[in-house]
């Protein structure tokens, strides 16, 4: 039995419900990311926000992006972050003061930025089609390996460089006396 376009007994569309739920999850978990004391929990909240965003990508008719979001952000970046947290977490590190002294100015600035963006968005008339256009993965593939092949290659080089750079930076410096032995 196919599910209807709208919530039963109401004119509220499923899409809208889904959107609201996902948006609340997204913003809520993002807020938790920036406000919680325990940094490990922050990391976990970040995973939640990434996941909600993947859901929104589906709503926007872009399943490939959603998949990529899950794979890259949740699968790679979040894990990386969690590892970094574990590497840098010291027991005596002060966990009390998570915020800067300038935090309240930052909050005000953030609110103002949000207001400006929202105001701008709402007062602008966009050339919107009014409906989500489904993006086929094959179209993306065609474009990525056709028109955008050069950027694609550049990005691959960048990624390689980043990996090498990351390894070099994070490498433990060999102590001087060991250098003599080698």
């Amino acid at each position: 039995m196919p599910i209807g376009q709208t919530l039963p007994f109401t004119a509220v569309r499923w899409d809208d419900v889904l959107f609201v739920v996902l948006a609340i999850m997204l913003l809520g978990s993002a807020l938790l990311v920036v406000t919680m004391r325990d940094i490990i929990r922050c990391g976990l909240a970040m995973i939640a926000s990434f996941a909600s965003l993947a859901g929104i990508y589906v709503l926007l008719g872009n399943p490939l992006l959603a998949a990529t979001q899950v794979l890259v952000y949740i699968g790679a970046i979040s894990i990386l972050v969690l590892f970094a947290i574990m590497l840098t977490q010291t027991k005596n590190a002060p966990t009390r003061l998570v915020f800067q002294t300038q935090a309240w100015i930052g909050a005000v600035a953030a609110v103002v930025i949000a207001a400006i963006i929202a105001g701008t968005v709402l007062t602008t008339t966009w050339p919107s089609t009014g409906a989500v256009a489904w993006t086929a993965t094959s179209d993306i593939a065609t474009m990525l390996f056709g028109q955008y092949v050069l950027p694609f290659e550049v990005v691959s080089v960048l990624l390689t460089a980043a990996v090498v750079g990351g390894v070099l930076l994070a490498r433990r410096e060999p102590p001087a006396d060991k250098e003599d032995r080698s």
Partner: protein
Amino acid sequence: MSNSLDSYLVLSGLLFAIGTFGFLARRNAISMLMSIELMLNAVNLTIIAFGAFVKPLHVHASVIALIVIAVAAAEATVGLAIVIAIYRNKKTPLVDEYDSMSQ
């Protein structure tokens, strides 16, 4: 609501603002990196929303978003590596104690 570009853009703006606040307010370097990721995601959301609603941008937006994700990954790699390297020298992940630039 889900068919309106505005709602996605506003959502993205809010996410960006939260990321901004995190970047400005948190003391921990890794928290700041996470905030940057949030902001990048907000940008990505914008791009994809435009792609879904604006005809000429269709598919192109997806490609750009993919590239952004790739770059974000590279950024995360290098950024975390730097944080670890600094942590080794300074023995603290707290950014406000990194002030070698003030000399």
